[in-house]
């Protein structure tokens, strides 16, 4: 049973003349213990794919299954619970609340999800690896783009979800940090048995992926050259 399965997903925006077909018959799978990379150029439909996978928007046709459960059968509240408990999103932008310090972003997570979050020890490891341990009392506006992104990653991992969906998590990071983040995501998948999907055009992450999909103009193909 794949943890994430998309079957024949299509997504169109608009009507008639202004209709754009963004995703074409996408079939996709991800399992626990895997780090999957979805590579594609700007405008290819990566973010659309990721938000449909996480239930943030609905496909025009086709079905998303998480642990064999079709998302289109869930009501708003159940989707909410799913995102709160099972999915960690790292979005392309706007991941943090501007009026909370870094520390308070995690405090908020504790307030809405009372159990199952990272223990203090594992949280300390996480923020050490991400190099954000000395940013705890800063507001997002006081952070650089890369720091913002690392905090967003930490925030997504903090609730210890089984599925992690990340959109361009390394866009603003230097190569050394990309290697660290890649390594961390990979070991998270392996050691903690999570299904991690990263959509990006950052080829530097290729080395860490278990499988790679390419997406071009909304059409997805599995890249077999990298299989090992």
């Amino acid at each position, binding site marked *: 049973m794949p943890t994430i399965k998309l079957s024949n997903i299509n997504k169109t925006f608009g009507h008639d003349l202004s209709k754009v077909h963004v995703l074409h018959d996408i079939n996709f799978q991800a399992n626990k213990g895997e780090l999957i990379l979805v590579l594609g150029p700007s405008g290819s439909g990566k973010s659309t794919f990721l938000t449909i996978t996480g239930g*943030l928007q609905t496909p025009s046709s086709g079905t998303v299954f998480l642990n064999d459960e079709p998302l289109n059968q869930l009501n708003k509240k159940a989707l909410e619970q799913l*995102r709160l408990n099972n999915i960690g999103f790292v*979005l392309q932008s706007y991941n943090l609340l*501007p009026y909370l310090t870094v520390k308070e972003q995690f405090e908020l*997570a504790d307030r809405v999800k009372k159990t199952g979050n990272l223990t203090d020890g594992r949280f300390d490891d996480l923020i050490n690896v991400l190099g954000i341990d000395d940013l705890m009392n800063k507001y997002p506006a006081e952070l650089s783009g890369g720091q913002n992104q690392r905090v967003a990653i930490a925030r997504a991992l903090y609730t210890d979800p089984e599925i992690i969906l990340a959109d361009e998590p390394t866009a603003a990071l230097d190569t050394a940090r990309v290697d660290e983040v890649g390594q961390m995501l990979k070991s998270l998948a392996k050691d903690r048995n999570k299904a991690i999907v990263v959509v990006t055009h950052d080829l530097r992450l290729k080395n860490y992926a278990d499988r790679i999909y390419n997406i071009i103009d909304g059409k997805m193909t599995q890249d077999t050259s990298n299989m090992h």
Partner: protein
Amino acid sequence: MFLAIKEIKHEKLRYGLIIGMIVLISYLIFILTSLALGLANSNTAAIKTWQAESIVLNKDANISLGQSLITKQQAKNIDLTKDQAYVGQSSVVAKSKGQDQISATYLGIDKNQYLYQDLKLTSGHKPTKSHQVVADEKFQQSGYKLGDQVSLNSISKKYTIVGFTKNAKLNVAPILYGRIIDWQAIKGMGPNLVASAVVSKTESTKISDANLKNYPIQSFIDKLPGYSAQNSTFTFMIAFLMIISLIVIAIFLYILTIQKIPNYAVLRAQGVPAKTLINTTISQSVILVLSGLIIGTLLTFLTAIVIPTSVPMSFNIPLLSLVAVGLLITSVLGALVPIKTILNVDPVDVIGG
């Protein structure tokens, strides 16, 4: 609550301005309410001190004390007990050397009846003789003093102020209480008259005269010249002000919410329950409105201290609290308007990429 407070703390200027607006609105409403009440009070203050429930007037007087006269003949048909008292009314202009003229109402009262006996003074003594009066504090505030000789209209013999009393205002004019034996002379009518009216602490007075009629005191108050018109003008003003304030506050809270949609989108993507967002919105508006109301109340109290006594203002705490609670409730309702927008926030619209 956590999010609500954190956000207000972080966006001090923005929320400060909104609190400032609520302060001004509540201040305006409080002051206007107090002014309206002050005016209403200066119409009826004396009647309140009489503790009257009803009044007997000439049935042809159109429920006006100034138009009503009771003759000796008619007076015989009134069953007076300790709960009834004669009032002889006359409009006068009071003047005294070196003082401003004051338009006042002379009320003659009988020293054996309750109005005289219950009269409470702030200084001096009650009229013990003819040509003595007790004056409303308005006279004192205008510079009149105990012992001052006052001429009423163009009557040559002067009256002496022997005492002062509070809340002696009828239809905005200050009252001079005197002995009813002086009243006929001031009114300038023949000796056949006893009084203008009989006020009663009971719901009605026994009368057996076709020319006299009992009126409940409220009917009498409603018929005071200008009283009902003033009241309805003020009531409508305040009501419109409240409605418009509600709309203004609601619009502000709506704009505030719209500006926060990217933040809400983040929270929705993280699976933060809709309940948390609604609680945040409501507690935020309660915090804003409450702080605004508290500061508005403090300003109102300050105003009450410094406002000149010539402006009739009356601060009725229960009424103002009611107004404040009304503002609070309507604002929370206003904050609920964008709830649907919050619940329908589509994270993708904002986050996209």
